[in-house]
């Protein structure tokens, strides 16, 4: 496994108590996609990790592998001890059975269903009453209860993302993948979504991997950060440590400009 990972593990002494390290996710992935050669290995032990890096670094590709939308050439992914993917043995769990919520940059609501039907789509197998109840709770959490009967075509960008989050979280996944879902939303709106989201996840101990290329955002949420560039992990640790030099570099560049 990579050097970045072993270093990261040593940094984790201030993690959860009783000496037990929570390992939410273990992943090692090798995959070539056009110009991008994805070569990463990491362990997620913080409940909220920002995956930070420039466009084209391979962040989205990595998320797609974790979510099961891309089958990598080689790799192994374990979510809370459960093997989702292991190319050596041929093990592969299809996306819906991974219990992973995935929210993309562009909202992907089903255009022919209203908001309620969208949120309920991942809830097959529950009774009608529990579905209605769960949908109601999720919409209320993201301040979207008043949108229940609306069609996705009539929603604003922010409203669509709130519904997309409600839909991804309604089945109570074991992990949430967020691929820059708040791009283009203003700061207040972003905060009004992030607050209930992080609280809800923390309550249920559901970890999130949050892709961003915005350095301010990485600092704001005070998380662990994985720095990615050209398909590789450059660093993994607390934001103030791994992003310190980049922050200074950015400030210098701003000064020059």
């Amino acid at each position, binding site marked *: 496994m990579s050097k970045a990972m072993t270093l990261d593990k040593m940094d984790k002494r201030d993690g959860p108590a009783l000496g037990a390290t929570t390992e939410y996710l273990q992943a090692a992935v090798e995959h070539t996609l056009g110009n991008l050669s994805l070569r990463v290995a990491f362990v997620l032990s913080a409940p909220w990790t920002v995956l930070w890096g420039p466009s084209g670094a391979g962040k989205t590709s990595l998320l797609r592998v974790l979510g099961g*939308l891309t089958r990598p050439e080689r790799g192994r992914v374990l979510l809370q001890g459960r093997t989702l993917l292991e190319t050596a043995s041929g093990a592969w769990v299809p996306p*819906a059975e991974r219990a992973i919520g995935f929210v*993309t940059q*562009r909202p*992907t609501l*089903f*255009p*022919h269903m209203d908001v309620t039907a969208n949120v309920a*789509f991942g809830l097959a197998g529950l009774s009608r009453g529990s579905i209605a109840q769960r949908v109601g709770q999720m919409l209320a959490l993201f301040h979207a209860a008043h949108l229940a009967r609306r069609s996705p075509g009539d929603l604003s960008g922010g409203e669509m993302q709130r519904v997309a989050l409600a839909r991804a979280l309604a089945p109570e996944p074991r992990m949430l993948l967020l691929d820059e879902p708040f791009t283009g939303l203003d700061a207040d709106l972003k905060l009004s979504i992030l607050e209930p989201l992080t609280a809800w996840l923390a309550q249920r101990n559901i970890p999130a991997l949050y892709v961003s290329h915005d350095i301010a955002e990485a600092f704001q949420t005070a998380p662990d950060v994985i720095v990615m560039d050209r398909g590789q992990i450059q660093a993994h640790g607390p934001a103030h440590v791994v992003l310190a030099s980049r922050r200074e570099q950015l400030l210098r560049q701003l000064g020059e400009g």
Partner: protein
Amino acid sequence: MDQQAIFLSFRLAGITTLILLGISIPLGYWLAYGRARWKPLVEAAVALPLVLPPTVLGFYLLVLMGPRTALGRTVSVVLGHPLAFSFAGLLTGSVIFSLPFAVQPMTSGFRSIDREILEAAQLLSAQPARILLRVLLPLVRPFLLTAAVLAFTHTVGEFGVVLMIGGGIPGVTKTLSISIYDQVQDFAYAQANHTALLLLGVSFLALLVIYGRGSRAHV
């Protein structure tokens, strides 16, 4: 007007359309999303009836259905009669002849669906049938209608294939388009005119349905 021919043509077109919808949904899905290397081969084969003279298709089907081939002999044992010059034979020919008119709209339909929408469905539901029924088919509904109308009207209007493999037996394989041809041969222009007008009307109405819906669907 030739009542028998009208009934036969519409029965043939109706059943052909149903069979073609059953084929074109999975085939269109596979052509849109499949990754097999030999996909162009299938695409070319499906499109072949578009460019081939119907008589060529009819000729080979006739040979294939006849006693000269093992397939033809097997089918005639199974059915109890040769496939050629029967309704089942017409049906086989019509399905092949109209195949591209149903498959191509369905392929375009599935291709028009945003890949991310499909993936969102795959992330939320492990049941392919549920994804097909609740997400994909509703999204391709206008294309499904186009496929059905084109398959139906194209079958009603076919001439070369039905003549070659059907032979124009009244009540069995003599469709409307053959009926017109016979009427003209007999100088029965008034009758031919009635039959032709009916076909013209049906075709125009069918296209009106497609374009009428099409303009609403793009709002």
